[in-house]
C-alpha cells in the first residue's frame, strides 16, 4: 500500500479513492494508540454518512474510540470478517486491524455523494506532521 496515495482525517481514519468508491480504515498510529482491539462496531450498509459523522466504535481493553466517516456518501460495504456474527457466533478477526490496518483491516466503503471529494482531508505529509511528537 502506497500510504502517500491515501488521504487522512485528523481523527485518524484513512481514505482511499477508486473512481467514486472510498475505502476507509484507521491508521497504524491509531491502532498503536489504541493497542489490541477487543470490539468493533461498523455502520450498516445503506447508511447515509456525512463528513466527520461517527459511524462506528472501536474498543481496546482500556479505551473506546469513535470511528468517523472521512467522506460524505452512502455506505456500500463493510468488512464483515472483522465483526462478530451473532447468527453463527463467529468472533470477528480484529487481529487484522492490528496486523494490516491499510489492507485486510479495512473497515467500510462509501460511495461518494454527488459532487463530494476528498479535498478536505489531510495529505500523507500533513498527517505525518500532525502525529509527529506523539
Amino acid at each position: 500500500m502506497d500510504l502517500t496515495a491515501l488521504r487522512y482525517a485528523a481523527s485518524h481514519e484513512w481514505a482511499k479513492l477508486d473512481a467514486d468508491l472510498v475505502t476507509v480504515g484507521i491508521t497504524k498510529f491509531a491502532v498503536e494508540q489504541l493497542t489490541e482491539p477487543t470490539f468493533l462496531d461498523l455502520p450498516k450498509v445503506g447508511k447515509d454518512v456525512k463528513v466527520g459523522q461517527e459511524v462506528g466504535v472501536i474498543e481496546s481493553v482500556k479505551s473506546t474510540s469513535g470511528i468517523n466517516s472521512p467522506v460524505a456518501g452512502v455506505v456500500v460495504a463493510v468488512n464483515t470478517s472483522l465483526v462478530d456474527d451473532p447468527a453463527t457466533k463467529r468472533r470477528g478477526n480484529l487481529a487484522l486491524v492490528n496486523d494490516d490496518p491499510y489492507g485486510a483491516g479495512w473497515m467500510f466503503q462509501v460511495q461518494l455523494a454527488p459532487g463530494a471529494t476528498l479535498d478536505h482531508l489531510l495529505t500523507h505529509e500533513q498527517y505525518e506532521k500532525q502525529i509527529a511528537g506523539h
Partner: protein
Amino acid sequence: MSNLRTALYDSHRARNARMVPFAGWDMPVQYAGIIDEHKAVRSAVGMFDVSHMARFSFAGTGAEALLEKVFTNAVGTMKDFQVRYGLVCNEDGGTLDDVLVYRWPYGYAMVANGSNRTKILDWLTKHAGPDVQIQDQTLATTMLAVQGPKAAEIATGLFEHDVTNLKYFFAQPTRYRGKDCVVGRCGYTGEDGFEIMLGNALGPTLWDDLLAKGVAPCGLGSRDTLRLEAAMPLYGHELTEQIDPLQAGLGWAVKLNKPFIGRDALASANEAAAHRPKRVGLELDGTRAAREGCTLLADESTPVGVVTSGSYAPWLQKSIAMGMVGPGHAATGTKLLVDIRGTAVPATVVPLPFYQRAK
C-alpha cells in the same frame, strides 16, 4: 506540579513502557500489551511496580489501639507477621480507603491506595494520640508485586529467608542482597504471589534480577483487568465515601462486634441491607465493554443501577463488569441491560468472582 516518579521510572522507560499519570505519579500502564501481560500473570508470572501505594509504619504503645479504632477488621486477634485486609471508614460508614494492615512483633504497618495517601495519613494523624509514631515510608521505598502461578519458583533463593513457605496473607521481614526488605504473600490479581517492599536504592536491581528470571513486566492496565476478573474492589469505583463496605460485599472484613469509626452507621445499614443497592457481577453479551458510569436498566426505560468497573476480560475472553444494583435486581441470573453509548446491551447477573485460581 509535576508527578512523582518511582525508583523504577528509568527501568520502565528502558522497556518502552507507556507512562500515564496515576494518583499523582507517572506510572507504566503497559509495556508490550495489556492482554499479553494479563495472560502472563495467569499462566506464568508477571511483576508490577506498585511503589505508588502508600506505606505507613506505626510504633509506640498506642499503635494497636489507633488501628483498632480506624480499621473495620480486627487488629487485636492478628498474629505476628499476619496481614489483614479491611477498610477505613468515616463516621457515616462511607469508605475512606481499603487497606492492608501488617502486624510485626515490634509494631504495625499499613499499605493504602496511592490516591488516598495524604487523606489517610491526615486521618491517622488526627486520631493518633501522643503514644503512636506514624511514619510515611512511601517515598523512600519501592514496592514490587510478583504475581502468578510461578511466583514461588521465582522467589526461591532470592531472599535470605525462604519465603516460599509463607502462608497466604503472612509476611516475612528478610534481606535482599544484604539489605532489609519485607516480603508478603498477597496480591491484587487473583493469583499466588508476593509483594516486596525494599529501600529505593535496590529497587532497580530487584527489577533487573526478576527480569533476568523471565518475569514479565506488567503495567497498571493489566493490574486492573486482573483484579476485575478476580472481582476485587478498586477504590474510587466499587468503594467510595458514598459506597460503604457492606454494600460492596465486604462484610467479612467488617467486625461489627468491636468499636471502630463508622461502626454504628454500618450496624444500622446492615439492618436495612435488603433495601439497599449492592455490588454485583455482570456478564455481557458480546465483547463490547461496559465502562464506569454506564446505566444499568431492568428494561428499556427503568434504570436500576450503575456500572462501577467494566472491561473485556483477557483471560475469560468475555465482557465483564461490576456495578451497584438496587434491591430486587441483584439476584444471580437476573437479566439486565447496560446502556453503552446509547446501545442497550443485554447482561446477566453472575456470582463473583468471575475468575478463581485452582488451589
